[in-house]
């Protein structure tokens, strides 16, 4: 029963940790707007965590610059299992307009398995909510597969 309780709860309280990997701040602002009274992601249990140790979902924005790459990977590795990695906006998926720049090391999927891509430049808050809800579902599945 306890295990079922945990599994049920996992999908209902995903906490986010946001990493800016060289983003233009467009996606960052959209992510924060998800938490405002207008969209209020907290009603779905989402919460922005302050430390990667508390997080379930890592949201990466930005094209993953060479400077940020080791930091991003280190921070992602510090998130306890089960975890879910969400790329937000086009940049971390492909590099977008920054592709081919000398300083861009992306896309992120070259280095870590990405679970959910939210496209858009920047995505609409509704799309972010969609993406996070999908991530929460994946999280629950991952939790079910543990142990």
């Amino acid at each position: 029963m306890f295990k079922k309780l945990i599994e049920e709860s996992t999908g209902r309280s995903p906490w986010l940790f946001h990493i800016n990997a060289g983003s233009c701040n467009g996606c960052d602002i959209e992510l924060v707007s998800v938490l405002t009274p207008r969209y209020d992601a907290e009603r779905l249990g989402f919460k922005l965590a302050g430390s990667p140790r508390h997080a379930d979902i890592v949201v990466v924005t930005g094209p993953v610059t060479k400077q940020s790459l080791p930091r991003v990977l280190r921070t992602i590795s510090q998130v306890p299992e089960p975890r879910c990695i969400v790329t937000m906006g086009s940049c971390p998926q492909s590099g977008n307009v920054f592709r081919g720049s000398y300083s861009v090391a992306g896309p992120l999927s070259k280095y870590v398995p990405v679970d959910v891509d939210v496209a858009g430049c920047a995505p609409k808050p509704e799309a972010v909510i969609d993406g996070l809800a999908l991530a929460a579902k994946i999280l629950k599945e991952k939790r079910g597969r543990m142990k």
Partner: protein
Amino acid sequence: MNLLGNVLSYQHFPIYAIMVLFMGSFLIAAFGENRRVRNILALLSITASLIFSLLLINPVILRGEIIGYWMGARSIAGGYAIGIALEVDALSLFFALLAACAIFVSGVYSIQYMSRDDNEKEYYTLYLLLCGGVMGMVLSGDLFNMFIMVEILTFAAVALTAFRNTARGAVEAAFKYLVVGCMGSTFILVGTAMLYAQTHTLNLAQLAQLVPGNMNTATKAAFALLFVGFGTKAFIVPFHPLAADAHGAAPASVSVIISGVLTKSGIYGIIRITYFLFQSMGLGTMQFLLVFIGSVSMFVCVTMALAQHDFKRLLAFHSISQIGYVLTAVGLCTALGLSAGLYHAINHTLFKGLLFLAAGAVLHETGTTDLNKLGGLARKMPHTTVLFLIGALSISGVPPFNGFASKWLIYQATYQKAVESGNIGFLLVTVIALITSVLTLASFVKVSHSVFFGQLPPELEKVKEVSWGMRFAMGIFALLCIVTGLFPNLVTTYLTEPAAAAAFSVQRYIEAMGFDGSAAVEILAGSFRYAGVWEPVSWLLVLCIALLAVTIAALAGRYDNVSLCRTAAGDSKYQLFYGGEEQSFSQLGGDDMFWGFKHNWRGYFSFMHRLHSGIVNDYALWAVADLALVMLFSLIVL
């Protein structure tokens, strides 16, 4: 057989307890070249002293006798005491037991702690002299002998402060201590002389009989001189900077004696003169004097401690802060207050001894006590850490350790005093005491973070746990801390209440030496009932059950499902979160940890900073100014 029986009569034990220490000192000075001989001699003498003190519990505390002992069969001639007398009532024995315990543990600790120093022979000679001085002072029945013993212990303490004279500041600290300590001794001497001129006797019991009836300007001045003189020994404000310097420089085992025992002997002196010699504690103004000085010591020293960044200096300031508690409680002049103060005196000796020994252990292994250079020692010295935490929680008054039990009594005593006397000032004292307690906690949080938790500086990677002997010594103190905290009723019933009762029965004290005590001013102790309840054992039991329940529930909830770093190489998963950066050494300095607090008090702190100039001339001036004020006060009110 008769002779042996005579020799082993408990009447002689007080002088044995003193003399074994002095004998040990002389023997080590004479034959202490060999390390083993020296250690055995030192251990023998401190153990013997402890045993003799313990054997006195039965007659003095349980049976309530007062041992009046005349040395060399001389006693009273022509109505005046002419012999050297020892007089042991429950109060004296209380302090003697305290001293013997601390001396024993610190002596055991010294054996390994001092093994890296040279001149060990001189160390033990001086150490036992210091101990003998303390023992002699608290058991003496003679004011002049008290002065002699004070001189012995002051000079031994000065010499021991400068013992590690290669260390920075040691000689300077000793010099400051010497100057102000000698001023204090001189005050005591002058006070004694003035009393002698007025009463023609030096015996404490006879003085207690004669002085209160014959108060004149000279005796009033003598009171001020004695009070300030013993105040110097207790390092109460304004003599606290000396303690900081002396503790910072002295070896930890000596700091234990200076803070745990020497200051107590100062308190003992103050109790003797205020309660016995002058019997002036019944006066509201005299209570005000003690409580005022006590509260100021309590608060000023705890704030000074918050600003320190040296482990031992910080402990030194706390030491005076705790002495402030004792003095405040003693100054209340109620049975509860005195009992609480004496309880706190025991506890202070225990936890402060433990903390100084822990500081010594850190110094012994790392070579520094600077809070900004230490950190993360918990992984290298786990036992020391646990012992230190017991001491830190005790001094901060966290239940169920002993500091809480005595502070709890002190709060009640001050509040009850406020209610009884209708004086709202005592209420302020309760509030100050409570705030001081939380500030104490704050500074020990700072120490535990800066020394034992946090990150290990790379240069301290090779630190090892201290040897078993040192841990054993600390363990004794820690055990006593827990025991006195868990069984407050036993401590109050068998130690502090008899001692407090002794302080209120001056008449018996006088009569025990064969004088007429009928004229003594009896101070009414008054009865008391606790305003609250505190059952540490049951509380601990409930806490254990709750902890067990929580632990079982947590383990059932896979609390033990932790993932630990298995590889030697730095797996980034197990590194600390540094905002994504690679883990590097970063330890919050202990210096300015509570700036949110200090920022609001910056005026006060900068004032204090300017006041504590570190110049010995200033401190001497403070002593004189203090004397002048107290003298003025006593001339007016006595």
